[in-house]
Each structure stands twice: as structure tokens, then as C-alpha cells.
């Protein structure tokens, strides 16, 4: 079974239990968040979980502004068409591990008029509509409160109302155009929403690398459980934490392939952050189940199994085959993967590179015809050859790169092969007029009958 097949099975299993698991995890996340926010009060009183999750003042009539993630597809940052207008903090916030929790007001913008001496334009000019958030317990106000804290984007003197609030455990001046002029409102300490994560080791890690100002960008939705750990979506990727306490991130360039192949359930948790390759141009992640995803000059490709093992042994992208340039493919009792400068093929005969110049001949012939390599390529007198389970790859500057296989191969070998009277192949195997196949050589042509039961015939004898 190739690793592709294993993956397909893994993805199927993952999908099968993801839905049931996600609903369970969703419930667990709500309860977990509620305990963090509501503490013993939540545990001991029959308070609805969602009421505790959003903290106090969560109804529209309470007059506070909604969280941005509630109205911005889960994204905890200022939505398009708004900008950071100011910030405040609540000290000693349990939702930030006992440290300061920061609130960034995202201001709506004015569409076609000025402010006439006020810092705010009239509501007929706003680019948003006053409303109550809906869909979760965070039913706070949206595009409603005409107010500005004033420390951010002070070059903008005219704005609309507060659209929503972005939440951060990292000071806003580290990722937004804000000053360090402090403002405090401890009354908002426990304001939150289901789309915001409670404090956790993963959240601590996210804050330590810079939160929304980090390479991961802003958080999207709340943290959730995955096999063997937890994960957090962000605008630029995902952050994972293993139950052993290792935090690793996968950026979007790699993530698309990671998710397409079954993510954690199929490939395991990442064991590296998305890391630049040594040449500085591309990136990769390694994963716990001995997979890697490389983003190279030919796209993003998954590597696994014996092919990855050999590629890693050969120096990864510094191997002679270079970066992967295609998916893993399986034919017969083996599988292979194309790279920028060749192929790595794996079968019971071993896992070997097929490099230029013989790689072209192997790719043209296909594993179904010439089989899988049984030895490394050899160079003798300007001729490169590589033996395969059902034939031979043969290349020279004068004749090109071609595979010889099947009955033609048997006849050619009987004649002495590379050293025989026919010489080197000058073209790939082709179909002849009788429904059989033929191949031209430097000194002749060998035809094979349609059926392997018939003996091959040499319609053009060697000229020497």
C-alpha cells in the first residue's frame, strides 16, 4: 500500500469521526471557556453555558460593542472597511493568563462626507449599518457607539462609530499603528465570545510569538482539540500544540496541502514550524507520521514513505533530484514521485533515484512497462544506464534517453544489449503497423509481435 492509499484511508476515517468529534469538541470548548470565564460561579450555578461564555454585558441592550470575530467570519481583527481607532486594557485578566487584556476598537469609516469639526461623521455617511450582533451569545452592538479611544491611526481625524472590538493578549502598539498611551477599563475584563479562545498553553504560545503581529496573523475562531493536541486557526495558517507541549505552526502555503491530505488525522501533528528552505526561496513542514510538505518551484507537494526517507537521507532539496514537482503515484507493486531533476521510485526492488539523463526515458515508458529501478544508474563511456525490473534505461548525448523493455528488451539483450550489434536505442518503443511494437536502434530496428506468445523478429538486421 502506497502512502497515498494509506492517506486516503486516513482521510476517510478522519472525516468520518471529525463531524461527531467536532460537535463534541465544540461542546467541550464551550464548557471549558465557560469555566475559565465564569469560574466557580459557572460550575455551581445552573447558568446557561453560552451566557457565561460571552461574559457580562453581552446583550444588545447592555450598550457595549460586539467582538470583531462575532461579525467577521470568526476573524479577530478589524474587518475590511474599518481601522483601529484606539485601545484600552483590563489588567489581571484570566483570559490572558492573569496579564493585561487589550481591546482595540475598530472604527467604521465615512463614505462621502467630512466631520465638520467633530471627530465623527454623521450616520448617513457611515460605511456600516447600526445593528445588534446575532448568532451567538455575543449580541453586543455593531456600528453603533460613536466613540473613539484615540491612540491609533491618529492621522485619521474623521471616522464612523465603533464597528467591533478586536481582542489581544499582546499590546496593540506591537501590531497596529497605535501609541503606547495607556487607557484602562477593568469593567470589560470578562467580555468575550465563543469565537475567542479561553487562556491555554497554546494561547500563551501564540501571545509569546507576537499574537496578531506574528507570522500567523490574527486568530480565526476559538481553539479546538485535534488528535494528540489542540489547534488554533489564524489568518495566515494554524498553530498546533501537542499533548507533549510542543507548539508548531503551519502557514497557509503548506496548510492547503496539509488539509487536503487529511491534516492531523492522516499526517500527524507538525514537528517543525513552517521553515524556509536553505536557499531561502521556499518553505516546508515535517509531520509526526513521517511526512513532509514542501513548497518549491513547482508547487506544494506531500512526501511520505520510503520516497521521503530516501530524499531526506540524500539531503532533501539538496538531493540531486531537487524539489518535488508532482504527487506520489502508484503503478503495480511500487510507487514513484517526480522531482524537478528526476524521479524517486520505490518497489520491492528498493527505493532509488532515477536522474537525468535516464529519467526522461523512464517517464516516457512508464513504470507499467519498464518497471522499477533495481540499481543506481551507471555511466560507462558516455552512456548512462539503469536497470529496471522489466527493462533498461539507456541514455547518451547522441541517442537521447529511452527505455528498452518487454520482448524487444529480451531480443536486444540476447544480442548483447548496449554492447551488442544493434547499439543504443534511438527512440522510444512505438506501435508498428501489425499491432505490435518496435524500437529503433543505432544499427537497426527490433519489432515485437502483438502477443508475447509470439517470438520477436528482427525486420531490419543490424548493418554491421
Amino acid at each position, binding site marked *: 500500500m502506497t502512502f497515498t492509499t494509506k492517506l486516503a484511508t486516513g482521510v476517510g476515517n478522519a472525516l468520518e469521526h471529525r463531524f461527531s468529534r467536532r460537535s463534541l469538541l465544540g461542546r467541550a470548548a464551550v464548557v471549558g471557556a465557560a469555566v475559565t470565564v465564569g469560574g466557580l460561579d459557572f460550575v455551581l450555578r445552573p447558568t446557561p453555558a453560552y451566557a457565561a461564555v460571552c461574559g457580562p454585558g453581552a446583550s444588545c*441592550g*447592555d*450598550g*457595549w460593542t460586539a467582538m470583531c470575530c462575532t461579525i467577521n467570519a470568526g476573524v479577530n481583527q478589524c474587518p475590511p472597511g474599518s481601522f483601529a481607532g484606539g485601545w*484600552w*486594557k*483590563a*489588567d*489581571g485578566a484570566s483570559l490572558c493568563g492573569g496579564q*493585561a487584556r487589550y481591546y482595540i476598537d475598530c472604527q467604521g469609516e465615512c463614505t462621502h462626507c467630512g466631520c465638520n*469639526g*467633530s*471627530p*465623527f461623521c454623521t*450616520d448617513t455617511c457611515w460605511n456600516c449599518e*447600526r445593528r445588534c450582533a446575532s448568532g451567538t451569545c455575543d449580541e453586543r*452592538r455593531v456600528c*453603533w*457607539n*460613536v*466613540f*473613539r*479611544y*484615540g*491612540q491609533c491611526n*491618529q*492621522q*485619521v*481625524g*474623521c471616522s464612523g*462609530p465603533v464597528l467591533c472590538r478586536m481582542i489581544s493578549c499582546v*499590546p496593540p*502598539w506591537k501590531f497596529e499603528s497605535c*501609541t*503606547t*498611551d*495607556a*487607557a*484602562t*477599563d*477593568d*469593567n*470589560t475584563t470578562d467580555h468575550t465570545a465563543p469565537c475567542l479562545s479561553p487562556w491555554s498553553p497554546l494561547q500563551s504560545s501564540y501571545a509569546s510569538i507576537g499574537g496578531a503581529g506574528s507570522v500567523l496573523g490574527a486568530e480565526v475562531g476559538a481553539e479546538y482539540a485535534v488528535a494528540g493536541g489542540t489547534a488554533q486557526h489564524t489568518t495566515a495558517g494554524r498553530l498546533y500544540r501537542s499533548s507533549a507541549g510542543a507548539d508548531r505552526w503551519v502557514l497557509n502555503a503548506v496548510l492547503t496541502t496539509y488539509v487536503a491530505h487529511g491534516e492531523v488525522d492522516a499526517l500527524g501533528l507538525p514537528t517543525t514550524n513552517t521553515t524556509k528552505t536553505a536557499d531561502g526561496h521556499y518553505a516546508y513542514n515535517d509531520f509526526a507520521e513521517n511526512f513532509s510538505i514542501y513548497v518549491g518551484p513547482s508547487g506544494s507537494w506531500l512526501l511520505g514513505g520510503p520516497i521521503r526517507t530516501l530524499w531526506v537521507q540524500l539531503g532533501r532539496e539538496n538531493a540531486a533530484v531537487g524539489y518535488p514537482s508532482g504527487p506520489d503515484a502508484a503503478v503495480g507493486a511500487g510507487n514513484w514521485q517526480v522531482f524537478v531533476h528526476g524521479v524517486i521510485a520505490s518497489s520491492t526492488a528498493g527505493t532509488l533515484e532515477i536522474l537525468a539523463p535516464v529519467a526522461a526515458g523512464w517517464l516516457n515508458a512508464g513504470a507499467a512497462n519498464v518497471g522499477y529501478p533495481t540499481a543506481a544508474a551507471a555511466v560507462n563511456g558516455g552512456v548512462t544506464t539503469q536497470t529496471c525490473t522489466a527493462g533498461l534505461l539507456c541514455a547518451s548525448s547522441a541517442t537521447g534517453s529511452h527505455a528498452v523493455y518487454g520482448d524487444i528488451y529480451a531480443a536486444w539483450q540476447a544480442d548483447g544489449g548496449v554492447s551488442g550489434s544493434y547499439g543504443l536505442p534511438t527512440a522510444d518503443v512505438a506501435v508498428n503497423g501489425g499491432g505490435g511494437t518496435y524500437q529503433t536502434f543505432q544499427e537497426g530496428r527490433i519489432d515485437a509481435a502483438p502477443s508475447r506468445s509470439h517470438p520477436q523478429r528482427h525486420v531490419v538486421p543490424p548493418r554491421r
Partner: protein
Amino acid sequence: MIPEPRADPLAVRALRPPPGWSARVGWRAAGDGEQSHRVLHAATIPMTGSRSDYGSDIAARLGVDDSLVVLLEFGASAVGTALFAPRGLPVPQVTQFDPNMLQRTLPGQSGFQRFFTVDGRAFCLYVVLGSHARRARTVPRVHALLSRVDVADGTLTLRGPA
């Protein structure tokens, strides 16, 4: 619970609110990397301490004839920016109060907010009225308070009556 703002000794010495007002000038201890500046809280209700620089907890306790005035200073980098371009302490007019111009919009209340610069120092004035319907009655009392605001000599305080 965050510590209450520390009193500004210079301001406290000269703090003379009009009758019916209580006032306090102070600043909070700055956290890591932060700058802390003076903030004036004045209200027509007793202030037992605020957990909010813009006075959200004080505003929530205002009666229909009560008012809250907050004057918050900003750092020097704000001076000269578009937001703080207006010069001089603004005097809010009755018509300028808006039920939505509030940090937290509570039923019946209205607010006023302006950013401005005085003597090379940047400030925000924020006023909350307990009742928008009774603003004609309460705004003159706000004017009386604002007429005593003094930011001279690097301080922020309220002068005594002339």
C-alpha cells in the same frame, strides 16, 4: 482589580470643583512599555474610585440630572496629528450631544467627545449626560465645570472661582 488612579499631588492641591461636583485628577501606574498620563474625572455623583479611564462605571450610575466629565491627556506624539488638530478646550453645546456618542450606549443617556490640543498638549474631552432629554438643564452645569479647567504649567486641574 486594577489599582485606582494615583492622585496627582499638584492637581489635588488646587482642585476646586464647582458646588455639586466631585472631581479627581490622577494617573494609573504604567504597564510594561506603556505611557500613563493625567486623567480628570468630574461627576455630579460621588466617585468612590473608577475602574475605567473613560468612566464607564461612573456613567452607569448617573441619574437623570447627573453628568460626567472626563479629560484625558495623551502623549506628545499625538500633537500635530489630524485627530488632535482642533485647538483649545471645546465647550459642548446642547445640540452637539448625541445618544450614540458614548463609549457604552445606555438608554436615555447622551454624550459628547472631542480631541484637541492646548499649549502643545493633546487631550480628549468626554462628557456623559444622565439624560439626553434633560440636556438643556445639565449642559450649563458642565459649562460651569469646564470653565475652571486649567492645563497651565504642565498640570491638569480645576481652578477655584475667580
